[in-house]
């Protein structure tokens, strides 16, 4: 990676951290919808698979370093043993798959609308499907409720995540019209 790549990786990691400071919408007593998963989608759609996976790894490293970088000022090692740790570690494959699909799907000559739709699809497959596949089994294991119930417990978050995928795609298309960044 060039130094510019490192700068972009660090920057998108910082964007994910900054999005954690945006007030969360409380849902289902204490489990909030945060904008951080949208940050992961944005990082992936803008940077592409490898640098996005690096950016979310940076955020995870900052958590391990005891910095309160997750939504609601959470951080420190306690997060890694918590019930939602699977969703945190799932950011790495989620970012990689989203970025990879964005790289493969989006062709520059198509209309803005088509490109936005393609990027939304990438964000849904990577940022929702892959992420939940990582998060739900961990939740089921740690809370001992079984896969089916863990799946049901995660469903209320899907509408919010779909909205985040659309916003991330719209923003990405506009940002990439202004600055040329090759996905890698």
């Amino acid at each position, binding site marked *: *990676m*060039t*130094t*510019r790549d*490192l*700068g*972009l*990786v*660090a*920057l998108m*990691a*910082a*964007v994910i*951290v*900054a999005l954690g*400071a945006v007030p969360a919408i409380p849902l*289902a*007593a*204490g*489990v909030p919808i945060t904008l951080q998963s949208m940050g992961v989608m*944005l990082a992936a759609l*803008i940077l592409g698979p490898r640098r996005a996976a*690096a950016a979310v790894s*940076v*955020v995870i*490293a*900052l958590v*391990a*370093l*005891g*910095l*309160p*970088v997750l939504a*609601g*000022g*959470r*951080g*420190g*090692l*306690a*997060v*890694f*043993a*918590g*019930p*939602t740790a699977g969703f945190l570690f799932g950011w790495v494959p989620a970012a990689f798959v989203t970025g990879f699909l964005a790289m493969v799907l989006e062709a520059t000559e198509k209309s803005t609308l088509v490109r936005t739709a393609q990027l939304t699809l990438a964000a849904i497959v990577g940022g929702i499907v892959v992420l939940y596949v990582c998060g739900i089994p961990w939740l089921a294991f*740690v*809370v*001992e*409720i*079984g896969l089916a*119930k863990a799946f049901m417990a995660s469903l209320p978050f899907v509408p919010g995540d779909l909205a985040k995928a659309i*916003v991330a795609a*719209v*923003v990405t298309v*506009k*940002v990439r019209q*202004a*600055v040329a*960044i090759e996905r890698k």
Partner: protein
Amino acid sequence: MIASLARPGSSPLHRLAAAPKLAGLAITATALFFVDDPRLLATAFALGLTVARSTGAHFAEIGRDLAGAAMALAVLGLADWLLVDGATALAVVLRLGAIALLAHAVTMTTTTAELFEVLERLFGPAERLGLIDAGRAALTLTLAIRFVPLIVEEAQAIREAQAARGLDGSVLALAVPLLVRVIVRSEAVADAIDARGFPPERAATAPPRPPAIRPEIEADTP
């Protein structure tokens, strides 16, 4: 800057090196997942409370730090109780509570710099295999921490500029110019780092070095 969750102090846990604390935490946390006996888990929870208190932090402070985790744990415990049974709920809450307390005790007593050193040491094997460059990885982490206030600054500047023009500004109206500006700034920072020759690139991928100052020019300067 982001303030670390660590607190200064001189408790036994503060004096212990970071690596054994982390290793101990990892082993204890893993082991607790194989324990189902509520009496043992209750003992672990009490131990967690004792260890967290031994750092010099009062229970009120610990409670404040872990309030979010406690609330999530309460919801999970309730869900377990309704969906599975009371015994499972108790075991899950005690186990996760004990791990959260022990982990928080480590976080409270270990500075970011100490954890950073452990992280760099963990990078070691991967570095020898050529998978990662510890110096550049450390630089990336440092940059990320520095970029957070920069993003907040830029967001405020854009908001103010839009307000001055009588715009309310939707999420899109903020997000797009903000991202464009911070991307451009991050590239400028990267170029500045390159210009200073840090961090040293590993062989083969090194960019062409800028030409050295010609000796005759140097000779001209007094």
